[in-house]
């Protein structure tokens, strides 16, 4: 079941690669947040720490409290932060800065589509490697998450608007989240908490900086931000 959601996550990256409208990118972020939520929800039965006896009675629940809290936390954080808070915030920034499209990308859309498909295909190939070391991870999660991370990094390098870079950063974080689900054991809750907090603040600070850039420069283009150089003094 969760494989369907994972594949949809991979496909959403192809869509992000092939469009230039920033509002569409933000919508895809919402969809990715929901998809990650469903992946969490449908995948947890297979986790080695989980069995239904854990929630059979009050004693079992209190004995397994850390696991349950950790699990609930992961679910709630994905849904609230990834599907609501961050996209809403980005939408606000989009409205304020009047940035609609990331035109004139270095690479035409058709090639973007093609290259991101190839990366996703490579991810599926990784998922099918039959080596003893790969027994330690769930293959589908691992392959697709690697594909998402690589596609995001590549998109960051080719896009022109600073906001597209922020969106690339968030999709990369989504990929990393999927990767952390691929490990067949739970991360300690404190780490989850810290990661969530940091990503949230990072997006917040990046958003603030986007606003400042918008106030200070005429355009939200990355090329504006290349004034500091080694050999020319222009301070």
């Amino acid at each position, binding site marked *: 079941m969760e494989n369907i959601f994972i594949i949809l996550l991979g496909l959403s990256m192809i869509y992000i690669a092939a469009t230039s409208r920033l509002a569409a990118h933000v919508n895809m972020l919402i969809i990715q947040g929901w998809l990650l939520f469903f992946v969490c929800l449908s995948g947890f039965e297979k986790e080695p720490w989980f069995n239904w006896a854990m929630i059979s009675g009050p004693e079992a629940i209190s004995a397994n409290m850390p696991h349950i809290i950790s699990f609930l936390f992961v679910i709630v954080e994905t849904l609230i932060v990834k599907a609501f808070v961050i996209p809403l915030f980005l939408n606000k920034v989009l409205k304020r800065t009047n940035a609609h499209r990331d035109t004139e990308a270095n690479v035409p859309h058709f090639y973007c589509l093609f290259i991101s498909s190839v990366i996703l295909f490579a991810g599926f190939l990784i998922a099918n490697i039959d080596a003893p070391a790969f027994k330690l991870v769930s293959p589908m999660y691992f392959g697709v998450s690697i594909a998402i991370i690589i596609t995001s990094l590549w998109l960051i390098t080719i896009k022109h608007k600073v906001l597209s870079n922020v969106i690339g950063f968030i999709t990369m974080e989504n990929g990393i989240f999927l990767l952390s689900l691929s490990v067949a054991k739970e991360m300690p809750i404190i780490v989850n908490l810290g990661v969530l907090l940091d990503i949230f603040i990072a997006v917040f600070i990046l958003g603030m900086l986007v606003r400042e850039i918008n106030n200070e420069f005429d355009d939200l283009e990355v090329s504006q931000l290349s004034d500091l150089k080694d050999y020319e*003094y222009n301070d």
Partner: protein
Amino acid sequence: MINLILLFPLLACIILFIFKNKFLNNLMINLYAIIHFAVSLCFCLKKDFLPMWQPCKFFAVDSSNIIFLMVMSIVFLAVAIYNNGYVRAETELEKKLRHYTYMFLFFVFSMTGAILSTNLGITWVFIEGTTLASAYLIYFHKTKHSIEAAWKYVFICSIGIALAFVGIILLTVSTGNLNSLFYSDLYNNAPLFNPFWLKLSFVFILFGIGTKMGLAPVHFWLPDAHSEAPSPISALLSATLLNSAFLMILNVFRVMVLSGCDGYARIMLMTMGFLSLFITAVFVYHINNYKRMLAYSSIENMGILAIGTALGGVGMLAAMIHLIGHSLIKGAFFLTSGNVLEIYGTKKIKSVTGLLKTDRKTGWLWVLSFIGIGAFPPSVLFISEFLMVKTMFLKGHFVLSALFLLLLTIVIYGLGKAVIKMAFSAPQEGEVKKVSLPWTMYLPQAVILILAFIIGIYMPQGLTAMLLAAAAGF
């Protein structure tokens, strides 16, 4: 005592938030610096004056992070004292200065947390915290260039740190049944780890945290951020932030050593170290902004640390000595560059002439800092670099040691050319005006420089023992 240095900044921020007062701003930074220094001194002397108040299991002092903590305390104390004069010279709005103070405290707090943490995940969180706190500090002047620098800093470092998190996830894959990220658990179970995933995770962690540490080829944020930040912040960035990132790499490297995969890790560290030296040697010669020049010198010194770590044994000991020396001297160098900026109002090397005649004290601090960072004999860096070259010879890396010396010579030439020109040339016509800066802008640099030179001549027994304990096992 750990609780004290971790909780004080949070408390101070609350107090500042309630009593909005200009006087309190500086007081809190100074108070925190003094407490920080006192606590780490007590840790060095192994005296606990708050035995009842033990920290939670996520923070502890051990043989390797005590050196980092001590170095950080000394530099932070110097920066805090310097900051008093610096803030007085700044004619900024009070609100802005208050935000500066919040972020300053938070920045030091997150670096302290990163150094003291005993859990890989928590270290990661604090390292990311340092990025977010220092972003505002770099952006403090609110000019176009400082936005650019802050943007590059946050973005590049966040991506690097995110990749480091991929490394941590892969490390948990390699640990098999061990469900813990505590360093002690990782060290104890290291021989059982799956080598394939462990090696893969080291690549990610080295590149990710290497971004933060400023190793080439992922150093691009560093010259921009260091040159645009206010000078006390540049000093903290260079002398303490890079170290705390280095500590995390060191801890993961220790796992690699214990699990027997270190040959591979050493090659990677060595490559990045030499690349850093090479990049600095290429760029430093033509540079025309003296703060950028110092930033490149930081990249070079981080490269030397990586090389020392890769060499292992005595090389590791040398790296530890180098870390102390570099932090002290580079801290002084950056603080002095703040004086130069204050006097001349420009960061351009060509516009600064006759520093010794314009302000004698700043001029000599400038020259002495150069002598220190150039590793001329009384400086402690001389010992560390000498030991490193000696280790390379003993291990038979003759070509590498020749390359090492050649690149260092080029870097020293590049730095020396600019420093000597700025200090000893005749001042431009009509520009000889007597400048008087407050004493707090001279004393801290002088003290930490003298400290660096004293350690170069006489290393106390206790310090040697600490260094040997920190370098053991590599």
